């Protein structure tokens, strides 16, 4: 089911075209990576989704309705730069954010307590926000984005400033939300974390969509499918395979490139019975490389 439908949105600031002709659909139960270099138009796109900015043309539909302020209660937002009232105590602060998203005071408080417990900072609930560490503030900010159980969650660089333990904590919650059929937009320029989490990728550069689709498909179509193989046995066998397009063979180590319509799995199945394999690596081109090649290519034009 399509949760959010974005059709050819365009936004200009004066003569500057911040976003132009961007279209995409979001479905529940998936994590979408919104990728792009700084100034690509990610924030502008997010702001248009949240109805903070109104697109000059194009349409944004949320649950089949034109995006409006009334629908804001159904989305959650974790901004890149943290914004908490420094002088407010944690519990009233979360209660306030919950109420701002349409929860009753009692419900907001209940959920705040639940999430503080879950993120292991319930002992900090009577401290002021300014008395917390960066990572703890980040957790509060994260709770404020999910306290009202939004159907669409927009996370702008959620992992910056977190230690590995807390990254895992966040990741697990994000994956739980995904299981609950929420749609999650994960905006980042860190390709490694996008690669690990995202189901689909939307890459924008200079205000335009340059790449869009399931992560696997993208990596397959951009990947050169180089296989790195350490083996012992008859080196002829590799060259004899039909699916091999080219090979760089060193005797007990080879770099192999396959024809387009074959996968590395097919190749492994073929050689396994005849060679003894010590190491097999299907080196896919990383999202990072794809990103760099696209951005460089675009910016040179």
């Amino acid at each position, binding site marked *: 089911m399509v949760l959010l439908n974005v059709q050819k949105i365009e936004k200009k600031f004066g003569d500057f075209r911040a976003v132009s002709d961007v279209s995409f659909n979001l479905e529940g139960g998936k994590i979408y990576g919104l990728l792009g270099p700084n100034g690509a138009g990610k924030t502008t796109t997010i702001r248009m989704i949240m109805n903070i900015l109104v697109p000059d043309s194009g349409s944004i539909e949320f649950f089949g309705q034109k995006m409006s302020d009334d629908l804001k209660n159904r989305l*959650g937002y974790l901004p890149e730069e943290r*914004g908490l009232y*420094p002088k407010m105590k944690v519990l009233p602060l979360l209660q306030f954010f919950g109420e701002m998203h349409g929860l009753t005071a009692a419900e907001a408080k209940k959920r705040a307590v639940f999430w503080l417990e879950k993120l292991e900072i319930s002992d900090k609930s009577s401290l002021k926000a300014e008395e917390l560490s960066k990572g703890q503030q980040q957790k509060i900010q994260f709770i*404020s984005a999910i306290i009202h159980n939004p159907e669409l969650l927009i996370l702008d660089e959620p992992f910056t400033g977190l230690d590995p333990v807390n990254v895992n904590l966040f990741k697990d919650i994000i994956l739980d939300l995904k299981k609950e059929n929420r749609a999650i937009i994960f905006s980042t320029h860190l390709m490694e974390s996008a690669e690990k989490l995202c189901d689909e990728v939307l890459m924008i550069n200079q205000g335009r969509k340059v790449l869009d689709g399931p992560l696997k498909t993208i990596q397959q179509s951009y990947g050169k499918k180089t296989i790195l193989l350490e083996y012992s046995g008859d080196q002829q066998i590799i060259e004899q395979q039909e699916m091999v397009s080219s090979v760089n063979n060193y005797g007990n180590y080879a770099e192999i490139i396959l024809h387009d319509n074959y996968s590395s799995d097919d190749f492994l199945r073929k050689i396994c019975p005849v060679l003894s394999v010590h190491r097999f690596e299907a080196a896919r081109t990383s999202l990072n490389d794809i990103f760099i090649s696209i951005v460089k290519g675009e910016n040179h034009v």
Partner: protein
Amino acid sequence: MSKIWTLVKREYSESVFKKSFIIMTIITPLLLVAMGIIPSLLVMMETEDQVRLRILDRTGKLYEPFSSSLQDTLQNGQPRFVHELSETNDSSAVLLGKNLVETQAIDGFLIIPKDVFRRNQITYFSRNVANFDDTNLIESTIQNLADQHRIKNSGLDAGIINELTADIRLKTIKITSEGTESERGFGEEYLSTFILVLIIYVTLLIYGNSVMRSIVHEKSSRIIEVLLSSANPFQLMAGKILGQGFVGFTQYLLWSLTGIGLVLFGSKALPVSSNFLKMDAMIFVYFIIFYILGYFIFATLYAAVGAISNSEQDAQQMATPVVFMLIIPIMIIGFLVKSPDSSLAITLSMIPFFSPIIMFARINLSNPGFLQIGTSILILILSTVFLIWITGKIFRVGILMYGKRPTLPEIIKWIKY
């Protein structure tokens, strides 16, 4: 609507339970009462010293009546003036007198010449000739003696002369809009008006500023982005203005209740609090009305300034024109007290940014009538609504702008946009 309410609730509870609010709420009425009491306290605590006078009486007959007329006493009951007669009356006596003043053995040396009633002049030597109290007293005492002496010499009856030349005092009574009369003079009128107007001025400045600061703060700490994910800019602005407004209103209510209480019971509780508390309870109702109206128009202006600023310093700088609009009516108050019903005063009390202070001052000073008060209030409300509409537009764009300070043409573009 519920979002505005949530915003108001947060703004209110964060401000009202702050120490600074509680302190200011308590201290201001205390200051107000103190201003009524302190002048009389000061008089009571005035340090008084005896004045040692030496008199060289060349007429030979004025010393006795003079010293018996000069019989003021100090707070502690001792005579204010201690006089001694210079025994000799030659030039060495003059030198001696001056010398005694110089060495601080005496405080004043008075020479009454032989022909004092023809020359109309006596000479007074002192280290401090700026003490009006003392010199006036000495002068008027001699004057009285001279008057009596001349009347006596002319053969007229002193009693009749006194009757004929008796002073006429002007007793000023103010008729208020409710038809009640109160005995008031320029001093009390000016003081009470000025104090109330000053409170309006200061609170408009304080609460307008806190609206602005709070917006700048939310902007620079990026809270605004989180808030915008759940509310729209207009709700944020309304929440801010109403929230701080309720804070100010709470304070005003507490003050006004104190004021009304003082008017009703003050004379019993505070016998020294003087005339200045003898005010119409209705004044406090207008006090609240004009504060609220003034608050809305200035809070809106301050909200606009907050939205286009990036830092507090930036905001304070940009708020200067707003502050001027508050200062100008304060500067006019002096003129207003003299002629509260001049056409200039009437005009100024209709201009939206000035009217909260000027109209309120005029209500205090004279009786502008309901038509003028009503018109002024109506103009104020209409301009505030218009201003909120414009500021809403500036606000929407401004709160998401970081970095560069917008120019005036840019702001105008935002309004049109």
